[in-house]
């Protein structure tokens, strides 16, 4: 099968990989460049746990053809913290017990960070709408919504590489 070269920026770093025809972005991120923060939950675009940002917009990496990201910017949970300093969303998720098993957390954080980027002062309804594509089976969502509200109050909007 023909491989195709793809160059993109991942959390600010240049990446160059060869991808298979039809290979999805989730697989390229996890096995191609070793960023294990996006998770496989369904492979069919229904659970949101593989959510990443492409040029700042949330996308489901399991449904994104890897070759389409050539020349674009991809952000994942691996790029949220600045060194050992947590992003306000990460700190709020910890303080608010918004992560239990943790499996949906990277996708939730990406969906929430995209929201705070475009709307630094979201209402509760805005938050519910923003994470409506992300399934959590542990928390019942309330701690997550509250954590995102708390992060917004703490100045959660911040630009990414």
């Amino acid at each position: 099968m023909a491989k195709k070269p793809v160059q993109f920026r991942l959390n600010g770093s240049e990446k160059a990989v060869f991808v298979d025809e039809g290979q999805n972005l989730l697989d390229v991120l996890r096995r191609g460049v070793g960023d294990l923060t996006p998770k496989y939950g369904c492979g069919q675009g229904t659970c949101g746990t593989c959510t990443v940002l492409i040029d700042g917009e949330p996308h489901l990496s399991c449904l994104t053809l890897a070759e389409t990201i050539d020349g674009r910017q991809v952000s994942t949970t691996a790029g949220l913290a600045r060194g050992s300093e947590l992003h306000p969303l990460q700190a709020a998720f910890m303080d608010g017990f918004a992560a239990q098993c943790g499996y949906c957390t990277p996708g939730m954080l990406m969906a929430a960070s995209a929201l705070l980027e475009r709307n630094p002062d979201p209402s509760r309804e805005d938050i519910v709408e923003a994470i409506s594509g992300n399934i959590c089976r542990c928390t019942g969502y309330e701690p997550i919504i509250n954590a995102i509200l708390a992060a917004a109050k703490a100045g959660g909007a911040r630009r990414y590489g």
Partner: protein
Amino acid sequence: MSIEFRKEYFADERDDNLNEVGKPTQRQDALGHVTGRSPYFDDHLFDGLLHIRCVRSPHHHARIRRIDTSEAERMPGVVRIITGKDVPHNLNTLLSLLDFGLDDEPLLSDKKVAYKGEPVAAVVAETERAARDAVAKVRVDWEELPAVFDVEDAVKPGAPVVNEVYPKNLFVYHGRYDHQKLRYGDVEAGFRQADRIIEGRYQMSPIEQAPTETCGAIAAPETNDRYVVYTSTQALFFSLDTTSKLLKTPSNRLHFIGGTVGGGFGGKVDSLHEPMAVLGTMLTGRPCKYIFDREEEMQVGAPRGAERWYLKDGVMNDGRIVARKFVGYFDSGAYTRLSSYAIIKGVGHLPGPYTIPNVYADVYCVFTNRTPATAMRGFGITGVDFAIEAHMDKVAHEVGLDPIELRILNAYRDGDMKAHRRLAKNTALIECCQVAAEKAKWPLSQAASQASSLRDGGGERGRLPAHTATDQNGLVSGFTAQSYAKKSRATQPSATPPPQMARHESAPVTPRVEQPRPQPVQPASAPPPPPAATEQRHTRFSSISGLRRR
């Protein structure tokens, strides 16, 4: 907030000078979760990883005439195809590790399938795509059999035999009974004494745990002829021991690493993936991953089993329940997994958090051609609690009482004797009802709002029934306890002829006189003497099989 509420109600019972309990404490894995660094099983990368996918039955019940893998073997990327004959000990039941139940489920069936989606072969291939393509090329010659999906149909004479280890489609308890019994007092006498009889039938559906991370495991060769296994299991030692048993491999050659589970809710105890991944690695010498895709997780992953309950209450006009009879059917699906245990747990819970002097239960673990059921969040309790509480509402409606008042009236209190013959302590149903009523602004009578779990219990309510009606209904013969721990499995499974189940339908009811339980005595100044050193240490028996450790 909830902590303060507990202090208020149990101030005289509990010492709250605790260092950690009652204070928020950060989860030790929270930092890993929010940074995406928590190591789930699939976050371990291996060069040359192979992918396993199973060939699954399209039928609910069918005999396997022939499995033809020749075309699949020639597909690009296929490394190996595994069938039942490759599994060293291809019959297991999860709780055999506790000496509970007979081995009844193959890892890969080669004779017959008993549920839709049951695996009959596994393809090991270079990529997931290649494995999927090859699965489609495995030809299985099926002989479809009649299937049964309803628990009560499954126990009728002449029903299709789902699970040949249990030819009447009923799990056998303690090698003796086709159901789990609870006998406490005499319900028939209670019904005669009651002002009215109120009956109900309650049915729940199976429920899928639907964890965000699907079930799976990766195995890889390790140094010193060992295998390392990364797994999503919730029950690491179940998975380790099950793998050891199925693959006839000493557990010290299996290095299991788990602990980070992407949601389980009970659905990750069945230990189906670890043995398959290790077997793939044994047969190919390469790292192997076996993971459910989402469709398999939903269709094949074992759910909370459905339960059907019949409740019959003898009720006085003032709302006191004087007798309660249960007949329950657990839908275990095609194999036992954990349903037998769920019933033991559930029967210990009957008749719910109420003090009822006469209680009776017959609970059947039934095999049907549905997906095998397993653990899920309080399984064995939640289903019957749904039935009990729905029935309490029905009773309240029929006797014209407020449903919360009815619960407070019948609630167990400290010192009451429960149907499983232990004294109730730290009861709090009354307080729970009072708080719920207060929060819902639901008016309660003065008597109900002043009731307390700490008062008016015990005494007459703490005594065992003067007599308990017992019977031999559902007695079966031909089942001798098979014990994995006793190493008697060499004679099982194929060497033994299928057990015959003889039922004695209506054995006479004989009263059983119980001695009141003596009040617990204060510990004497000297501790009891240790058991004699010469005492023979018998093979380990688990208390869930009804036998105690000796």
